[in-house]
């Protein structure tokens, strides 16, 4: 079965890597609180036609062994607008696309240590209706999370991993990894 292709410790590793990426990259200010709760099913409102008005930011990380799809959805409400955009003259959509890019980038950076052949997509925006079709990808691993940033900003995140061959690896399971981003490495 496809679901047997990803080992238990690989699943735990994908989860831990996502949690670290979300905690470090989905926040506007370092140290802002991030609450991540696993969800078992989509909220009712996302299973109705009303979901067509919502959008998700989608990024993929591909290797020979697997494809990881990360979907992130924000509410277009005042709290989210204030948190991510503030007074800047740009849209929440434009702004959040880059946060999604940074989050997936952090996942990519950790996975590179285990899978050297990775490639990451640029972010793209799809209707949230696509979420109900994810099963068509026959993912070997799928997880959904309700994420709350700074106590006021609600997000949803989904990770789907489609595997072509058995995937087994063990990530660093500590709460945080050493941060080296932002430094200029001279060649």
């Amino acid at each position: 079965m496809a679901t047997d292709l990803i080992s238990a410790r690989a699943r735990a590793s994908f989860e831990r890597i996502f949690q670290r990426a979300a905690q470090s990259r989905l926040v506007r200010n370092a140290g802002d609180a991030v609450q991540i709760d696993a969800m078992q099913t989509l909220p009712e409102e996302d299973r109705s036609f009303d979901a067509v008005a919502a959008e998700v930011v989608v990024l993929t990380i591909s290797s020979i062994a697997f494809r990881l799809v990360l979907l992130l959805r924000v509410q277009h409400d005042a709290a989210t607008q204030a948190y991510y955009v503030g007074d800047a003259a740009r849209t929440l959509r434009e702004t959040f696309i880059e946060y999604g890019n940074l989050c997936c980038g952090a996942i990519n950076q950790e996975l590179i240590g285990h899978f050297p052949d990775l490639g990451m997509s640029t972010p793209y925006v799809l209707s949230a209706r696509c979420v109900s079709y994810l099963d068509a990808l026959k993912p070997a691993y799928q997880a959904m999370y309700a994420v709350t940033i700074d106590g006021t900003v609600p997000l949803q995140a989904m990770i789907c991993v489609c595997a072509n061959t058995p995937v087994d690896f063990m990530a660093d399971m500590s709460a945080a990894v050493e941060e080296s981003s932002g430094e200029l490495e001279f060649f």
Partner: protein
Amino acid sequence: MANILVVDDSSTVRDEVAGFLRKNGMDVDTAVDGKDGLAKVRANPGVKLVISDVNMPNMDGLTMVEKIRGELGNKTVNVVMLTTESSPAMKDRGKAAGVKGWIVKPFKGEAVLEAFRKLAA
């Protein structure tokens, strides 16, 4: 003519990086992808420093650098990649194309400001 060019398909990143450098007294232009960046370097051969993303539509950042060095014959402009990518293979391609340095996002302006001043001088 600006002596620094910031190339990124994200307006958020262009605003953040160019805004920070301008606030610190530097003259900065921006481009939205590798194709636009190549055109701007072609039009302004006096640019001293290009700060570029890797993954962009139309033309990626490393292809842009290869064309700056090859098609334009510009061997002197300093190029620093600002990207979420960190793979050794990608950095090797950058080195081979004559990239001077590599920064993994997110951008932390204070950490690189003096280095950028020297590269743009």
